[in-house]
């Protein structure tokens, strides 16, 4: 059993990270912690991908003349890179939404914000918001592939 856990540590770790992140993302009311949860979740997926391409004792896949070598699989690495780009842009979007909500409701607690929103404080805040022109953040969505 212990052997199996040690052998599969990367996969177990990645799934643990994913579940931890998922729990934080859904259960924590604080927006910044939600973002941290999102990042943990993404990291779990990336570790899972990278673990698949990894081989014990493998080297970076660069061919050298004459030497017999074991290479790790480069394709998952490429996928992780693409995934990181996606994760960065989604974190940026999430942060910008958080900024916008904070500017309007002066709180980072989502439950608090929802309560204020339904109790109709929205209208009062809206006028304040018109003056402080929010910074634009709509350009981080062109992922290079």
């Amino acid at each position, binding site marked *: 059993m212990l052997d199996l856990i040690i052998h599969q540590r990367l996969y177990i770790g990645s799934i643990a990270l994913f579940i931890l992140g998922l729990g934080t993302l859904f259960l924590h009311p604080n927006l910044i912690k939600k973002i941290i949860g*999102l990042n943990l979740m993404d990291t779990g997926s990336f570790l899972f991908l990278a673990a698949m391409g990894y081989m014990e004792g493998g080297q970076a896949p660069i061919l050298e003349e004459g030497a017999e070598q074991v290479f790790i699989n480069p394709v998952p690495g490429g996928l992780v890179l693409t995934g990181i780009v996606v994760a960065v*842009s989604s974190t940026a979007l999430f942060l910008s*939404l958080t900024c916008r909500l904070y500017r309007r409701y002066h709180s980072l607690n989502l439950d608090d*914000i929802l309560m204020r*929103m339904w109790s109709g404080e929205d209208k009062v805040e809206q006028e304040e918001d018109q003056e402080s022109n929010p910074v*634009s953040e*709509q350009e981080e969505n062109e*992922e290079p*592939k």
Partner: protein
Amino acid sequence: MSFLTFNIPMLSIFLSLLSAVICPMLPKKNQAFHLVRIVELIVLAMSVYLMVQLMTIRESFTYMMGHFPAPWGNELRAGPLEALLATCFSLVMVLSLTGGAEDIRRDIMPHRQNRYCLLMQLLYTAVIAMVYTNDLFTGYVFIEIAAITACIAVVAKESGHSTVAAMRYFIFSSLGSGLVLMGISILYCITGHLLMEPLQVAIADLCQKGLYQLPLTASAVLMILGLSIKSAQFPFHAWLPDAYSSGTTATSAISSGLVLKGYMVLLLKLILRVYGLGTLARMHMCNLMFIMGLLGMLITSVSAIRQENVNRMVAYSSAAQISYIFLAFGMGNLAGLAAGCFQILAHAFTKPMIFVGTGALIRAGQGRSFWSDIRGAGRRAPLAGIAFTVGGLSLCGLPLLAGFAAKYQLGSAAISCGWQTYPALFGLAVSSVLNAVYFIPGILVIWNRPPEGAVFPPMPRSSTYQHKISVICFLIANVFLGSMVGTVMMVINRGLQLFS
């Protein structure tokens, strides 16, 4: 096949991506609107040409991006079904943008309108790429692009409600894409492929030898759940009503008409081109989709009845219509998949029409989207009222309209299933009745006499020629789909035959 025909899939994606990048650089706001629509019309024309060509030679082809073979390269694939979907999606996109133009001007700050065009064009690119891609990982990347742009499009209206709605949407969709990515990783882990044809061969091989059945099932569950969260399938539809009711008209129309459909097309590819119907049925995935669809079409319809806000009701109705597609895919036969494709098209033309109509009705009413505020709005904006009426009746299943044809196809596909026949027919009948229960009172309200002493804001320019053209085209498309079922089904069936 000529050089141009061969390059149409790549050109469609490339042109729309290029125009998206150009949009925010244009000096005047109307230029971006025109550019976006011109590019979409060009893609529309190219897709029609491609569809006619592929239908005459009865073939499909794969296109290697940059001429690199697998596993380094990336492939696109085009067949009659892909060309048909691209055609319809381009048309819906142009019409929704045109019909929602007035609301975009009202809801979005002038200096942001060019950027809004950028968002819309990126969404469009993502959907077209999901239609044409032959590579699972490319599919994942465009899922993410669609999710991020759709969230920003919701928040573009800049109210507290829309920001919270976008956040909730975003949390759900990042979970969905995380699950899809996990599923793709597992699949890559056990097969070593990301392109669909080699994946299918490898999976068939694994199934024959009885190897890795557990990871294979896990990957299928993860991807189906991921895509169902993304497409707001019951029980993951919690984000949808807020997101659709707080966005501007064009956002809601395009998200429900196209973006959800993009995920469905990807699911169709997973079913037919990656796992194969037999394997999925053995893993009980078809039953899972069927039950989710059946429960979804009943429960979300019941939720729709309870809504006092017209936009929220239409949003719940979207979730119910997505459930029809899941139900069709879960039937586990080719007829079911064909019916699912038809439902994709029917809903893609009907729901944006309803949203465009509702947007104009809200403007013609007392300014808010509650039923009490739009009482009698149909009399002030007749064409919008007709759009809402025809769309509602189509979803209830009035013959000669697209919704009826979709229901008919679903019903006839259900006849040839196993245990699913009676539940499917029961679900169709009950959900049609429920559709009528929430749409017909709505239709009566908008044509009713306005309440005594109601104060209407001055009539805006809701009846501009753009809105008229959009609604009339939607109406024609709806009647066309409803009356020319045979032709459309012929293209779908031929596409599906070439699919696997």
